[in-house]
């Protein structure tokens, strides 16, 4: 025991002395290293913009969105705009990579330079030598990338930074869509995703101005019209009044222009006071009405418990008593009753062991007629890609609302463990359901 303590003490002392020495050296050299780095970046800017007025010609702007951290407006000694530089960084499997992208005032790329990185030098050097020249002269809003560079990770990072810079130049179409309703929006942030009955899965997105104050919220989702799907958003002002309907695609904006205009009659109206029945009975308006009614039902609920139940079953009015089924996978079950107090469905919540015995948290809702009505994977640690294959396959099968379909194992070949885990959960839930209903 004493020996072990001695070893620990010696290692502790060596570690402490080492740490102190490194800290001291770091403190001593920090300012100088920062100066060197700044000088190196300045050299890059001068290389890109030979006419640059290095004393007064640079305007630095911090950028908070995407992989680009800084936008620098470049001017010559006469004060004329000579271009922009974007300073961005990304992290890939091999480490970090810092990139400077220089463009001229017309948006043509002057050069792309890697200023610092921890990727494998053997790959980075030929990549820069052979492929970076291709960027020069290209329009940043429409860059042609090389497919096989031999340094996929590094090149993908550079590509991602260029795409982020492109959004700053050409504008982010999603942000622009939000700005069409909320002119002061500077950034947006997805807050949560929830199920809203007829509106399907809805994502709540918060919109902020440049002082970081909330200016509104948009609930985005997908609607289907004549077998085509469209991404849209239901916008709400910060004071909980209706702001408008947004479409993210230009073609959809045109196609639904009259329907959107019909909804504009509710502009600045309290959400509670919106009466969808006053709208015309027209196909496109009806699609939007279905989305709005599903969403409003959730948004206007004061009752948190009911809001939770509606995620499982949109007919829910109240839940029955909760119990614990016999299956190890099923942790909780309860019945849901509709407004007429008739049994609507049975909810099963639990965990099933996925790949490497990692738990997959999920729930499933079985309707009164024994069909699978709804389900969700709440959390999982399955391998990216493989797990998704299984989950996507399950979603498609369960979308058919056919309890037999989920058992088709071929649908998730390649992710057998995950697929079987989800299937076992559903088997247990159905067995318990059949026992309860006496089938």
């Amino acid at each position: 025991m004493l020996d072990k303590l001695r070893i620990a003490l010696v290692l502790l002392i060596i570690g402490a002395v080492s740490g102190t020495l490194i800290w001291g050296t770091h403190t001593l050299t920090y300012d100088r290293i920062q100066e060197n780095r700044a000088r190196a970046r300045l050299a890059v800017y001068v290389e890109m913009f030979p006419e640059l007025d290095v004393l007064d010609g640079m305007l630095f702007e911090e950028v908070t969105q995407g992989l680009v951290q800084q936008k620098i407006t470049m001017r010559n000694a006469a004060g004329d705009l000579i271009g922009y530089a974007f300073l961005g960084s990304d992290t890939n499997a091999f480490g970090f990579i810092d990139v400077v992208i220089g463009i001229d005032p017309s948006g043509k790329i002057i050069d792309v330079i890697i200023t610092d990185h921890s990727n494998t030098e053997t790959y980075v050097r030929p990549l820069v030598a052979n492929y970076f020249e291709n960027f020069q002269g290209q329009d940043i809003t429409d860059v042609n990338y090389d497919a096989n560079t031999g340094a996929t990770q590094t090149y993908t990072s550079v590509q991602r930074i260029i795409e982020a810079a492109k959004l700053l130049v050409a504008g982010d179409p999603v942000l622009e869509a939000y700005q069409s309703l909320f002119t002061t929006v500077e950034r947006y942030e997805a807050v949560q995703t929830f199920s809203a009955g007829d509106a399907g899965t809805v994502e709540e997105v918060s919109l902020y101005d440049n002082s970081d104050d909330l200016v509104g919220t948009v609930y985005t989702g997908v609607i289907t019209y004549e077998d085509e799907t469209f991404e849209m958003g239901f916008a709400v002002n910060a004071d909980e009044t209706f702001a408008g309907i947004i479409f993210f695609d230009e073609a959809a904006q045109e196609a639904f222009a009259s329907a959107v205009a019909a909804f504009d009659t509710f502009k600045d109206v309290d959400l509670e006071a919106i009466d969808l029945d006053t709208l015309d009975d027209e196909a496109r308006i009806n699609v939007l009405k279905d989305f709005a009614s599903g969403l409003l039902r959730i948004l206007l609920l004061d009752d948190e418990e009911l809001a939770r139940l509606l995620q499982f079953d949109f007919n829910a009015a109240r839940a029955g008593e909760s119990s614990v089924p016999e299956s190890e996978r099923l942790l909780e079950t309860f019945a849901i009753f509709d407004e007429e107090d008739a049994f609507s469905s049975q909810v099963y919540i639990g965990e099933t062991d996925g790949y490497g015995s990692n738990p997959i948290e999920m729930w499933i809702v079985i309707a009164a007629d024994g069909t699978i009505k709804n389900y969700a994977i709440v959390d999982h640690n399955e391998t990216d890609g493989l797990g998704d294959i299984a989950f996507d396959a399950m979603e498609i099968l369960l979308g058919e609302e056919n309890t037999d379909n989920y058992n088709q194992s071929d649908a998730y070949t390649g992710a057998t463990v995950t697929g079987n885990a989800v299937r076992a959960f559903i088997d247990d839930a159905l067995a318990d359901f059949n026992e309860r209903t006496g089938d």
Partner: protein
Amino acid sequence: MAANVAKKTAKKTPGQLANFTKGFIKENPVFVFLLGLCPALAVTSTLETSLGMGLLVVFVLVLSNIVVSLIKNFIPKEVKIPSYIVIISTFVTMVGLLTEAYAENLFESLGIFIPLIVVNCLILGRAESFASKNNVVSSAIDGLGMALGFTFALMLIGVSREFLSTGAIAYGEYLPLGVSGSIFNFDTHLFNMAVFGGPAGGFIVIGVILAILQAIDLNKKKKAEIARQKMIEEKKRLALERKRKKELESAGGQA
């Protein structure tokens, strides 16, 4: 008493001198033990980068040898190697930061090979085989001698490669000398063999230098062998003469 001390000192001096000089030729880490070949191949495209890497190794090897020798009795043997690694990596981190601050061109040029000094077997080898068994002064001298020997080897490779690939030997490009230029510059295509600037050139130059050193060594051994053979033959001849003389004497006696 004073005479004894003088005797001891007099005895030690040549020992420390040999300890210092052994790293240059007799026990040169690169050319004899083939240690630290990774930086010897990777950073020796110019004389300055070779010298730069050599100086960093001098700093790390001398200090790590001193520290290891100082605390050798306190380190439990179970954690000997991890402790050495921590000590070495501390000095490497320090030297890395100092290089980035005061010799940024050298830092850029040496790149990943600065942190890789931690795993240079020369440094860990000297800590384990010498510093952990000897006193501080001997360890410091051994570290200095070995590191300078390593530097000498790197510079020899570097100067050959730079000359063959560029026809010139530049200064002030990587080291913060304050001035820059070329020691000499043969502006001819004869010395413009780019292959010597790359890793292949490193292998070729090291190979040629090793071959020359081997040839010199073999030649020396051959000469020594010839001398030995001559000596043996001479001894044999003398013995034969003595034998014959004895035989003649005994034959004369009988007559």
